[in-house]
């Protein structure tokens, strides 16, 4: 029923990118940056009246723990004819991800204790540099953009985070950290670089959630 796809096939790669976006949103954080090492296997199933479903076997790594391999399986269902609904994604990570409790708490304390709200731009810069103290922010941008990528992926798109154009911390009265990002997403098929505004809330125990996101300039 499900047709095997060569892993070099573009539709498999696009589904993998959507799955990685979703996984980054779910499991990423200032102390964890997951990236795709290899798409091991891909199958596709066309479900009448429903859509196209991809079954993927992915090999990932945490950029902070590169010697380890993170294996996972993912299912990506693109709904038929739908331009406005996100693909349904399910990801199962095999084994345990390295704990980031200490790093997360340290980051949280550091940001909470800043007198002035953090502001930064162009991460990485034109030469690919990321100052070490901004690396956790960069990884949070992966989380934020992971959400946008997942929500906006179709079989005809493949998104990557091109650059964090701007990030501004917004101090809150509750315990969450809030970062307002302007991220540039590179869409491979159209080759467009699209700015998105994303508000990310993060807490060391509760994790991340996107409070709002929109294509920059939209609805203003």
């Amino acid at each position, binding site marked *: 029923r499900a047709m095997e796809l060569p892993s070099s096939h573009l539709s498999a790669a696009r589904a993998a990118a959507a799955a990685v976006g979703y996984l980054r949103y779910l499991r990423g954080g200032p102390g964890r940056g997951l990236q795709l090492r290899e798409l091991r296997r891909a199958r596709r199933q066309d479900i009448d009246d429903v859509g196209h479903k991809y079954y993927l076997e992915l090999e990932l790594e945490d950029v902070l723990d590169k010697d380890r391999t993170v294996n996972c399986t993912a299912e990506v269902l693109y709904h038929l004819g739908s331009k406005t609904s996100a693909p349904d994604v399910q990801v199962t990570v095999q084994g345990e991800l390295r704990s980031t409790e200490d790093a997360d708490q340290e980051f949280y304390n550091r940001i909470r204790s800043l007198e002035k709200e953090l502001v930064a731009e162009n991460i*990485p810069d034109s030469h690919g540099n990321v100052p070490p103290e901004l690396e956790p922010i960069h990884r949070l941008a992966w989380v934020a953009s992971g959400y946008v990528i997942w929500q906006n992926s179709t079989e005809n798109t493949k998104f990557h985070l091109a650059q964090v154009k701007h990030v501004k911390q917004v101090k809150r009265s509750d315990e969450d950290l809030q970062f307002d990002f302007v991220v540039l997403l590179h869409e491979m098929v*159209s080759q467009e670089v699209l700015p998105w505004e994303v508000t990310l809330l993060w807490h060391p125990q509760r994790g991340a959630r996107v409070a709002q996101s929109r294509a920059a300039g939209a609805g203003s």
Partner: protein
Amino acid sequence: HQVLRVVPQSNEELQKVQELQDLEHLQLDFWLAPRRLGLPVDIRVPFHSLQAVKVHLEASEVPYSIMIEDVQALLDEEQTEMLRSSRQRSLDTNTFNYEAYHTIDEIYDFMDMLVAENPNLVSKLEIGRSTENRPLYVLKFSTGGTNRPAIWIDTGIHSREWVTQASGVWFAKKIAEDHANNEGVASILETMDIFLEIVTNPDGFVYTHTTNRMWRKTRSKHSGALCVGVDPNRNWDAGFGDAGASGNSCSETYHGPYPNSEPEVKSIVDFVKSHGNIKVFISIHSYSQLLLYPYGYTETLAPNAQELHELSAKAVAALSSLYGTKYKYGSIITTIYRASGSTVDWTYNQGIKYSFTFELRDTGRYGFLLPAKQIVPTAQETWLALKVIMEHARDNTY
């Protein structure tokens, strides 16, 4: 710094905003470039340019709002990096820093130094001029003969793909070194010439340094077109205008008003046709880690697709042997996307059997903003793949 927002409501207003793009001394950073009426244009304006920009807009009664009052950079790494690297011009190709990104002036200086140091091997040809009248330079590596069968390599046709121009510089030095040491490609140079165009899109390249690091296209403005620039990899006469390119000038894959409308493309077309003996044509892009062969504009298999597929497998294995970098390979249309009017589809249809496109590192972690310390490893591993292709062509003359 402030971020100003303009929402052009008339062609006059749009034009006024577009004019700002040409004023390079203002050092404006367009977060949202001018596209069409009703769409916001966001401009980060450095402090020293604020008054000039506001005056420019106010004089034509173009309304604007201040989106962000004070953009305070935590670390202006970019500015300090460029300053640091702009001070020390190296005096020869041995002290040139291959591990850094360079400006167009530095790369053009490098070319002249390489020629001066290797007068019996390297010469510099000007094959045309860009839209903004910059010279289009090609380095010719030749040990003699007349119109020998040749290999063509271009880098930087898409200006934001900085690792490619940087790799081109490294390739140039490598060819000269191999020849001097009588190793590597020295044997290929006994019977073949190599042509290398390092900055294939100089206007775009300058623009990525001065204004918009993510600029891809040329900088041409055709009459009737709302936006600037044509995708030079959609402007070739192979399936021109078919699905896989855009007819909208504001699109990153705008094919242009007609094939070869871009001087950057036409100059290569003219060169290839008048040379008449090019056997290998390789166009280098980033990113994705792919080795691609025709076609992009059609699903029809290239007549020697089998041979190209096997050759790609060998080339990719050689590349991988150095640092373990993994590449995928296949035809353009099945591996990356449908693309019409692309370079290697045209060169292949001209009879250049070994036409390939590379997409270099990485696979999206840094994308176009590949850290400078990856330039040399990228160039080194890519070179191994290029040698496999060149040697195959040398051993399979046609």
